[in-house]
């Protein structure tokens, strides 16, 4: 896992290596300085002259400046290394996601990918920063200070061997008690924030039902539950400070009493006063390094989960690739399904599509109708290879879709997704997703075809109107028309509209279909709809039912022969049973 993440260091390798080196120098200097200070104190005590004091002064200033230099450098390169690492990590994840197939995206879900790119990267960066800086600093500091303490105080330094296990044991106990509480608290905290979001979104409902106080009570209770958990956790964690203080004090008392005795009984030979006070300084450093180590330990365990989740994304292999010698041209817009079946996951028991045999000629207009879960969307998603068929073959222009270069295929097969989005940016920018080089004229033409021009011209900024994130400042029908225009700009050989005019009025809907028939006759058009009026005039209509093709035919044919189509048609067009016969007669007449 660490190796996987380390790949994102790249150009920051130098900084990442320099950081611990600078830190090491910094630590060494920090260990030496108190030693020199001890000498100085001793000199002053014995009444040394100004020259001696100045001498030590200069040495100290020199050391301080050096330590400053290394401290500065380590801080500087550490910032470069860790933020650079974060940048590369984000880049790598994002890049990986760009290469994901629909199946990959479904597996993770968008929301979880967002968390991995944001919160998890933050946690991983924090851990990285700790590793190259603090994780070097703390143990080195511990060792150096201990060595120095031993040099200074001799056997007295062994007191640390007694105190250290107490401190470590105490810290471990505290962490072990507090961590489960935090683990329990954080998800609850997230849930609380989600409930706030729910409340904000549903404010109209809250106010309509006069449920403000009910919501307040609910929130107060949830909020208080969280307080109880975190308060408990923090109360446990709050023993860290006093524990550290206690250990330090034990050392102090020991050094002061035993040390005093040693100084006097050995006449200052085993220990002198300067060393004595320096020993106290080192004891502080040793114990605080231990503290820091325990903190690193806690932080690393927290970020472990994040690192694992990042690696899951980085290790995920895209399920769909371009072949090695791809075909770079799509000849025409003909589509063939040969005994195709499809499952979203190999774990699924039932296939979503079964035994699909279907041949569509270039330039045909095909309507698809069927209930929720009948497999309409799944069927068309196989054409631009958003998913691969589990069994059987899908051909476009006579060639297996798996033999095309993906980009070429998807450029020729434009699909307006059911759950479509516009991106923040002007209308023009959004349209140019379809074709970067499209001229203003082409944009306008596409919008005319999609029935979007009319409302765009009503906006004060027309084509430069800024679309807010999520397209919140245009209505559902307007959004759908913009999405169609965007797809039209690709000048595709096959155009798939997956329930893309559900919020457009029937008149405009009809106009769009008429325009497409007239202006792009050679393009194969596949229209999925809930409304029979949207597919009525198609060359052929496919009725889907439970993952199978129930019937294919013209509207008139299907009205006569297909029960599903007739039911849907009648329920949408005429009210009441008395009209049914009339319609049937009419349909019969047409046939």
């Amino acid at each position, binding site marked *: 896992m660490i190796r996987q993440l380390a790949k994102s260091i790249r150009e920051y390798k130098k900084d990442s290596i320099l950081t611990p080196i600078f830190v090491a120098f910094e630590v060494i200097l920090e260990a030496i300085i108190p030693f020199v200070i001890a000498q100085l104190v001793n000199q*002053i*005590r014995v009444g040394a002259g*100004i020259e001696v*004091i100045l001498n030590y002064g200069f040495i*100290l*200033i020199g050391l*301080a400046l050096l*330590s400053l230099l*290394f*401290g*500065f450098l380590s*801080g*500087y390169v550490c910032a*470069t290394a860790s933020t650079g690492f974060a*940048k590369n990590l984000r*880049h790598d994840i994002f890049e990986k996601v*760009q290469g*994901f197939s629909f199946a990959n995206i479904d597996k993770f879900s*968008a929301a979880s990918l967002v968390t991995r*790119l944001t919160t998890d990267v933050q946690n991983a960066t924090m851990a990285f*920063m700790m590793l190259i800086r603090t994780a070097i600093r703390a143990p080195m500091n511990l060792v150096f200070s201990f060595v120095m303490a031993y040099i200074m105080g001799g056997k007295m330094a062994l007191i640390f061997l007694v105190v250290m296990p107490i401190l470590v044991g105490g810290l471990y106990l505290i962490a072990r008690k507090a961590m489960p509480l935090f683990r329990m608290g954080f998800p609850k905290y997230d849930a609380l924030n989600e409930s*706030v979001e*729910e*409340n*904000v979104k*549903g*404010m*109209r*409902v809250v106010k*309509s*039902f006069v*449920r403000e*106080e*009910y919501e*307040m009570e609910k*929130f*107060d209770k949830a909020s208080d539950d969280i*307080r109880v958990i*975190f*308060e408990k956790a923090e*109360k446990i964690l709050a023993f860290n400070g006093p524990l550290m*203080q206690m250990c330090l*004090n034990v050392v*102090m008392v020991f050094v002061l009493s035993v040390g005093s005795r040693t100084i*006097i009984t050995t006449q200052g030979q085993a220990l002198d*006063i300067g060393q004595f*006070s320096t020993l106290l300084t080192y004891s502080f450093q040793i114990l605080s390094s231990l503290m820091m180590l325990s903190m690193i330990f806690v932080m690393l365990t927290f970020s472990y989960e994040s690192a694992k989740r990042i690696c899951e994304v980085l290790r995920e292999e895209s399920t769909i690739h371009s072949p090695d010698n791809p075909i770079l041209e799509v000849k025409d817009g003909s589509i063939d399904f040969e005994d195709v079946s499809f499952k979203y996951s190999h774990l699924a028991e039932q296939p979503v599509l079964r035994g699909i045999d279907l041949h569509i000629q270039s330039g045909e207009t095909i309507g698809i109708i069927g*209930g929720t879960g009948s497999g309409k969307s799944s069927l068309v998603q196989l054409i631009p290879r*958003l998913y691969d068929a589990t069994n059987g073959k899908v051909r476009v222009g006579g060639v297996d879709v798996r033999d095309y270069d993906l980009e070429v295929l998807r450029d020729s097969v434009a*699909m307006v997704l059911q759950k479509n*989005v516009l991106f923040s940016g002007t209308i023009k920018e959004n349209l140019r*997703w379809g074709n970067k080089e499209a001229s203003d004229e082409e944009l306008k033409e596409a919008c005319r075809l999609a029935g979007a021009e009319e409302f765009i011209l009503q906006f004060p900024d027309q084509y430069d109107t800024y679309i807010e*994130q999520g397209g919140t400042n245009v209505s559902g*029908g*307007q959004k759908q028309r913009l999405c169609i225009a965007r797809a039209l700009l690709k000048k595709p050989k096959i155009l798939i509209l997956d329930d893309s005019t*559900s*919020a457009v*009025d029937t*008149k405009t809907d009809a106009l769009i279909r008429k325009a497409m028939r007239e202006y792009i006759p050679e393009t194969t058009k596949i229209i999925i709809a809930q409304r029979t009026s949207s597919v009525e005039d198609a060359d052929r209509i496919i009725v889907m039912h439970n993952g199978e093709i129930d019937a294919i035919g013209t509207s008139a044919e299907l009205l006569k022969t297909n029960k599903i189509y007739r039911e849907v048609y009648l329920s949408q067009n005429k*009210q009441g049973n008395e009209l049914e016969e009339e319609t049937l007669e009419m349909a019969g007449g047409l046939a």
Partner: protein
Amino acid sequence: MKKKNRAGILKRIFKLLFSFYPRLLPVMIVLILVNAIISAIPSVFQQNIIATIENARNTNLPWEEVKGTVYYFVGILIALYITSILANIAFHQLSAVITQGFLAKLRNLMFNHMQTLPIRYFDTNKHGDIMSHYTNDIDSMRQMVSQSFPQLLISLVTVTTILSIMMYYSIWMGLVIIFGATLSIFVTRKVGGLSARYFVRQQKTTGLTEGFIEELIHGQKVVKVFNHEEEAQIDFDKVNEQLCHDSKMANRYSNILMPILNNIGYLIYVAVAVAGGIFIQKGVPNFSISGLPFSIAVVVPFLGMSRQFAGSINQVSPQINSIVMGLAGAERIFELLDEEEETDEGYVELVNAKYVDGEIVESDIQTGFWAWKHPHKAEGTITYTPLQGDVRMFDVDFAYTPDKVVLHNISLYAKPGQKVAFVGATGAGKTTITNLINRFYDIADGKIRYDGININKIKKASLRKSLGIVLQETVLFTGTVMDNIRYGKLEATDEECIAAAKLAGADEFIRTLPNGYQTLLDGDGSNLSQGQCQLLAIARAAVANPPVMILDEATSSIDTRTEQIVQEGMDALMKGRTVFVIAHRLSTVKNADVIIVLDHGHIIERGTHEELLEQKGEYYQLYTGAFELE
């Protein structure tokens, strides 16, 4: 943020803290003070011990003779330590209580205040922005309250204590240290200020980057369909680079601050040592409170104290970032708290009532019969009128912003049990009219009467209780199916809820759910289909059983079979009630008692389906050609 503003925010935070914990907070402050003083004192006794030993060594006293003095001081030290540890434990425990309590209380304060805000607030602020008050802003205050404030206070006390002790020994030497401290503070302000500035900037870029990621990843499938992966990557790298730059600068400044301050501490140390040496050698007369002459006994403790002094100042520096960010967060939270509440000057109330001898009287128990309780101040009398569901609008004008009137001269009436259907294009004002009836927004001109009472006189809660609503976009809450239905009437029994579900046609599908009525729903109803969500919303409105309903029919496509069930549910809900419906379905319009055709905020046609078809006007156009479904 202006300086004055900062002081104001700080003051407000403390006021808040104090109002939450009027007793604990002072205790906490006392504890901090005691703690800081106690932890400064031991250095004096350490010096005493050192001085004793020194004295013993110079005079060659044996250990047995010094032992008593040393152990005496050590004893005092132990006592001090224990007190200090106990005070420390008390302080930390209290701090955990106050911090978590403060955050929880602040959250509740925000949330409770938010419930009282008018719909306008939610319509004009992005939901993401509102949310960040609860996440980012609260988080940024946590650090400030739990660590920065206490640390600041501790350092302040320690510094003052040490300074007093130093002044006791020697004012000259004290000045040397004060000079060094000034330098440290200066550096902290410069470097720390820069660091804080970049941290604030980093916070902003982080927000931008997260927004970008959110948008792109949620639109990833569209990115793929358009082969837009490379462009997306390029755009992302730009944002990413900016974030990297800002956080690099922020981290650099904060990383180098500590080494600088530490080493300034050493320089001060050297300065004290050299100055002390010179003073002793040259025999400079000391100037101090104690009146002690310059000697090693003065200089050595000074050296120790100078380190402690520098240490205290250094402890403050890491807190600067969190204080700057905490204040910025607090400012935004206060903005929310300062938002003006929805006003309610109504005094007419909806009460349970019953007939006694042909007169309506208020009842304490649920009677299922409601009446408006209308006090008349002038006469000092109270009249009761039965709740019927008669709504009339007279010459109503409305504007969301004063310069743009969106409704002109709207007059309409709906007698109890009548259905009024609104028809018209997007932006014609259909939804706006319904927003006025339940007073989500207040009319600019004209009058709206409910059962003959001006709705401005009716308490908003009572008014809204008398109006049911089913929105186009269904909102459900995290909880069981039963909870969601009961939302319409909290005191409803399970039987009532099930009856409502049956009425709505939801009962059938609910029974197929894994746990039936006890199935837990995600907030966004993601485990239900759109149609099923709508059925639940209908059931929720049905259980409330109000005389007047506002319905906004959904346009989104649900499959035909579910749609039929939804339609039947809607029809059942409408039966026997006054209904305002924003219509998208033909059958709804046909069954309406009156159809109101709106265009750009004007009523352009009105009448029954047949009448309007005969007119061959706009409605005829809509009916025959297109039904604008938006």
